[in-house]
């Protein structure tokens, strides 16, 4: 029943997309499309939530007689799927709500409206799919539709290239997944997930599947070094689609990885965890370092997605390591942390992209160096963006901290692992996680501080106006969720328990029943956290302090020019810029990570020319991996090019000898 309702939702979304093609020229279409998407997402969200909340053991499947004749299309709703459906449809709901306002500024609605609901439909389908064929079809559909959305503003500089790279990487990822499912299904071709689940692949094959899943899902999620398309493509789309791509589609990729590795693949080997951990750690640190070097607000956010995917994969790697050593409760803790971070990230990343979109509509600028002082012009957007920044920087009492705290608790359990490699690796990964959290805080001080604080750096920033009510409603809904998941994490974590129970056969203790709603993942004497109490205490202390001082001491305020050590400069250009803010971190970390070099040229004494500071940075991943691959492909293509100029006899020879060779291989093989 629930599956049917969800599939009906998908159908409505697809129909909306088709309808939008017809009505693209009418002005009311946008409101209708986003309204319908909002409605359908809300229904799907409710169904998924009900499935998760009320009967967690409840697995429902449905087979439609479409697709391959001998296979049909299988769909299934279990705890894991319900969880990710919540993430997808929550993102869809808020993005639609935001789109109701934001979409009015769209200059090319015909290029966005048909694809937006189709994109939502595709993501829902991926999560619902229960056989390899449906899964891959939905996955590819999702990729192509999102590519179309990336290309919506294809005339803007760089967007066409972003779309091209995205298409290449998406095809590569799908190819990897295709091979993975081919290996999983085996020679008999049991493509239904049930059949795959029952078969137990041998370790070498399973390892190959893991690698392919990492390539396929990892490239979609943005794991380093497969992340290169992400910071190009996500910002190129309209902002609510950026939010969907960053906040939700990367989560669908995580879903693909979890589904394949934890559900379909059978018991893991211990060193898989190490591989995933290293990838996660490197992704987290490099992602945030890249983000720190950006001046483009949306690209900065996109790089943060890379970072957060790294954090999720750290949790997944821990869960794999624990699971391989049959440490069920610890694995449940790590997986809970990863899944909770999935949810949290989808909430605050959508929020931040909405904020960036509001700034973009108000000023027409994505470059932070030309913004500034927006807190005066757009106070509500500023507040929402601030909340998102606190959440993503993993600071209490908001939700980002809770999931990172849980990940740390998982890391602190690692000494119990028997393998020495893991014993030593995990603390190092923990240090990397701490580093990335601290750098993220620095990065969001920069993003918020340069964009919203200080003085206006351009007339566009000066003339900005607060964004519309729909957008604000979407943002504040998410702010509320950030706070809710931060102060009452127990309820959310209990909601994740059915999924860990399903995948690992273990779960955390029910958290919502703990005294004072404290979070106690392992044992009372070991570690605990109570966001609600901290929130109330801090709020009370701050209010009391302010009240007391205002009541008994002084409440006088005088406005005056800035002090600035006695040398205030009226030009807003003398403020700290995004580049100068990141300079200390660039000097400390960038010299290694990006080969950053500073080149200062001073005019000789007496001359009045300006001094210049030039920073050279290299993207080592791009230069070290993609450029050689590109060169090799060019080289191979040149070689093959010669084949085009053969004579007909040569072609005939080629065909003849190929056939003979293949026949010989066939005889020798069998």
């Amino acid at each position, binding site marked *: 029943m629930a599956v049917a309702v969800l599939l009906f939702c998908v159908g409505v979304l697809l129909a909306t997309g088709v309808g939008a093609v017809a009505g693209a020229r009418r002005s009311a279409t946008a409101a209708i499309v986003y309204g319908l998407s909002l409605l359908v997402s809300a229904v799907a969200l409710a169904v998924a939530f009900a499935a998760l909340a009320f009967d967690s053991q409840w697995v429902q499947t449905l087979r439609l007689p479409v697709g391959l004749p001998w296979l049909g299309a299988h769909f299934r709703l279990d705890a894991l799927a319900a969880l990710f459906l919540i993430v997808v449809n929550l993102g869809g709901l808020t993005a639609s709500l935001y789109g109701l306002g934001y979409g009015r500024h769209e200059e090319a609605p015909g290029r966005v409206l048909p694809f937006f609901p189709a994109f939502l439909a595709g993501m829902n389908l991926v999560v619902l799919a229960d056989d390899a064929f449906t899964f891959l079809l939905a996955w590819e559909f999702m990729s192509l539709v999102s590519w179309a959305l990336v290309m919506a503003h294809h005339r803007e500089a760089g967007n066409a290239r972003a779309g091209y790279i995205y298409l290449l990487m998406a095809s590569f990822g799908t190819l990897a997944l295709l091979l993975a499912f081919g290996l999983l299904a085996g020679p008999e071709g049991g493509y239904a997930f049930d059949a795959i689940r029952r078969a137990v692949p041998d370790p070498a094959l399973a390892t190959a599947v893991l690698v392919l899943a990492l390539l396929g899902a990892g490239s979609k999620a943005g794991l380093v070094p497969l992340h290169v398309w992400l910071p190009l493509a996500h910002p190129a789309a309209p902002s609510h689609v950026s939010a969907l791509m960053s906040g939700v589609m990367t989560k669908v990729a995580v879903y693909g990885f979890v589904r394949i590795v934890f559900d379909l693949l059978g018991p893991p080997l211990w060193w898989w965890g190490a591989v995933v951990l290293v990838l996660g750690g490197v992704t987290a640190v490099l992602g945030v370092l890249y983000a720190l070097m950006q001046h483009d607000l949306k690209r900065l956010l996109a790089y943060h997605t890379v970072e957060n995917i790294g954090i999720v994969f750290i949790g997944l790697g821990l869960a794999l390591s624990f699971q391989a050593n049959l440490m069920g409760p610890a694995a449940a803790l790590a997986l809970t942390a990863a899944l909770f971070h999935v949810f949290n990230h989808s909430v605050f990343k959508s929020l931040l992209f909405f904020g960036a979109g509001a700034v973009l509509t108000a000023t027409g600028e994505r470059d932070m160096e030309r913004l500034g*002082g927006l*807190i*005066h012009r757009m106070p509500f957007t500023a507040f929402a963006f601030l909340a998102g920044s*606190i959440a993503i*920087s993993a*600071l*209490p009492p908001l939700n980002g901290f809770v999931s990172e*705290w849980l990940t740390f608790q998982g*890391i*602190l359990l690692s000494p119990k692992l028997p393998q020495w490699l893991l014993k*030593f690796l995990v*603390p*190092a990964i*923990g*240090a990397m996680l*701490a*580093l990335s*959290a*601290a750098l993220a*805080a*620095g990065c*969001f*001080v920069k993003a*918020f*501080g*340069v964009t919203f*604080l*200080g*003085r206006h750096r351009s007339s566009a920033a000066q003339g900005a106006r607060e964004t519309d009510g729909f957008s604000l409603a979407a943002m504040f809904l998410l702010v509320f969720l950030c706070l809710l998941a931060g102060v009452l994490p127990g309820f959310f974590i209990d909601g994740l328990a059915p999924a860990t129970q399903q995948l690992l056969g273990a779960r955390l203790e029910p958290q919502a029943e703990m005294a*004072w709603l404290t979070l*106690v993942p392992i044992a009372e*004497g*070991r*570690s*605990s*956290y*109570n966001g609600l109490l*901290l929130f109330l*205490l*801090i709020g009370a*202390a*701050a209010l009391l*302090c302010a009240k007391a*001082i205002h009541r008994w001491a*002084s409440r006088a305020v*005088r*406005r*005056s*020019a*800035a*002090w*600035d*050590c006695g040398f205030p400069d009226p030009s807003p250009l003398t*403020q*700290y810029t995004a580049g100068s*803010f990141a*300079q*200390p*971190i660039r000097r*400390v970390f960038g010299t290694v990570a990006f080969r950053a070099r500073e080149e200062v040229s001073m005019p000789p004494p007496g001359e009045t020319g300006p001094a210049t500071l030039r920073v050279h940075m290299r993207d080592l991943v791009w230069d070290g991996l993609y450029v050689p691959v590109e060169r090799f492909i060019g080289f191979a293509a040149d070689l093959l090019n010669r084949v085009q100029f053969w004579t007909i006899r040569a072609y005939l020879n080629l065909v003849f000898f190929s056939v003979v060779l293949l026949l010989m291989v066939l005889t020798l093989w069998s």
Partner: protein
Amino acid sequence: MELIGKVLVQLVQLLLVLALAPLLTGYIRHLKARLLRRRGPAVVQPYRDLLKLIRKEVVLADNASWLFRAAPYIIFAATLIAASLVPTFATGLVFSPAADLIAIVALLGAARFFLALAGLDVGTSFGGIGSSREMMIASLAEPAMLMFVFSLSLLAGSTQLSSVADFMQRPEVGLRVSLALSLVALIMVAIAENGRIPADNPATHLELTMIHEAMILEYSGRHLAVIELAAYLKLLLYFSLIACVFVPWGLATAGEGFGAFAIGLGWYVAKLAVGGFLLAVFETGTAKMRVFRLSDFLGVALMLGLLAALLLFVSRGL
């Protein structure tokens, strides 16, 4: 009824750190002056400064936003709550399960986040320089801190400070190199986090050498007082942290009566006195580093933390 008593004890702890924090800073300043053979201000001078500041009017820069006005109270409240959750005279207080060591560090991180934002709010270059350097230091200090937490949890099986303090009083802890390494790492982190010499000079007003002072340059009146008090509290917090983990002797447990509390309090004040003296001596004998040497300084802290964890693995792996 019992709960009210427990909450009262917690409240006492909160007021205690609030009352002692300026005293500790005044004491250290006084000692440093004496070590330089100056007479120095009275030990209670910070109280006088705070009282004077909160009675003054606030001079606000023209384009300061609401964030600039709200930040001092948020910073103060987060630091105060963090400081009152670290055991000082007794362990196992009623609110201590609300935050383990990681959460306490994160609370300080939240305070720092707002401080750095406030530094950027007016849009002057000094505020920016302070904020950007502060965030760099934080990014270096945080991994070292985490390694410290890791070693602690490896040894004591807990990140809950009350449990750690109880564990550390047991005889089986013994002499451990890794504890010494952790201690040194923690002290280095504490020095950097509190902006003491050699990381930053709390007494400087030379523009290009300051970090903390640069961020709060635009603050005045009650806002400045509250921020200063938060800085005093943070210093006290790190003293309490070191005391409760490495010299946990004399700590009372929550259930004991007032006698034990009084003894614990006496011990706590004595520990602060010794710690403050050591800090004053160290600061007098050291010169401030260049900003970009700090990465080496905190890198060493991280290495020590890693090494401590490694050595612990050895001694536990046997």
